[in-house]
């Protein structure tokens, strides 16, 4: 049942998105790698066509030259699919479209990625710091962040 759902879902995705996707998998998740420009249409189709209605986690990782934003998606009630969507942006131009209109739960999680990692999400309704004081300088989770004093 699992494989049928997965294969059908990926076939549907490939029909919609063409070859802008890179799909792989391991024993825990199926990974979808996509470019930053295709995040919005991918998330739209994942929510509407594939039925992944629950964005569990949105986080950002610093890979020195690039930042990678990772999204973990599930469906409630469970449909057996466990997806990880990954996208990379260059360090000096760390801008991604915001998916908070599709998944409202991304609202604060994107604010946290902006606050701690410095990635800007265009189209976000309220992109301000959420955990650090407003006058804090820098983005602490970056690998090159130096603590003063």
């Amino acid at each position, binding site marked *: 049942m699992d494989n049928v759902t997965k294969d059908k879902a990926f076939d549907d995705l490939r029909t919609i998105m063409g070859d802008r996707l890179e799909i792989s998998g391991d024993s825990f998740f199926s990974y979808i790698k996509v470019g930053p420009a295709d995040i919005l249409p991918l998330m739209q189709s994942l929510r509407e066509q594939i039925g992944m209605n629950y964005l569990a986690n949105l986080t950002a990782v610093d890979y020195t030259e690039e930042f990678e934003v990772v999204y973990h998606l599930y469906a409630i009630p469970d449909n057996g699919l466990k997806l990880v969507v990954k996208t990379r942006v260059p360090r000096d131009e760390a801008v991604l479209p915001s998916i908070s209109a599709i998944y409202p739960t991304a609202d604060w999680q994107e604010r946290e990625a902006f606050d701690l990692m410095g990635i800007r999400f265009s189209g976000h309704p309220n992109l301000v710091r959420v955990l*650090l*004081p407003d006058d*804090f300088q820098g983005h*602490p989770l970056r690998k090159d*962040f130096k*603590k003063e004093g």
Partner: protein
Amino acid sequence: MVLNPSLTAESSDDTAQLAEHNIIVTTLEKVWNWGRARSFWPLSYGCNCCPIEMMTAGGARFDIARYGYEVFRAAPRQADLLIIAGPITLKMAPVVKRVYEQMPAPKWVLAMGNCATSGGPFRDGYSVLPGADSLFKVDVFVPGCPPRPESLFHGLLELKKKVEQGNY
């Protein structure tokens, strides 16, 4: 009963004789310190794990009320003891400072837990201050992560000794 025999005027025989008739001779300062030490009104303030042990100290098993310190006040204007339970983060620092300044004198500060004493396990992070004494004068430090309610009582009793003797 003579409160402090070495500091009474005249000879101790007079005061002892007066005490037999239930007349105690002392200073107002000593009486007020005696009362203050036995009725700290802590402020309900806490961030993190330490206030849970503070609440438990107020519960039925440990019972902070037997010392007279169970009157936790919500408003700083009515409190005289600030128990800093938990770490002071960058965002919280101006808030704690303001709350401390709103408390009327005489007031005391007890730093509860490793985070309030020195930054604790989060000292090498970027957002925790290295102890409450970087903001104001602390009277008693209670180490522990979190300190048991009994440790908190020990700290409160040390503060009581300090206040009774007028060392503040």
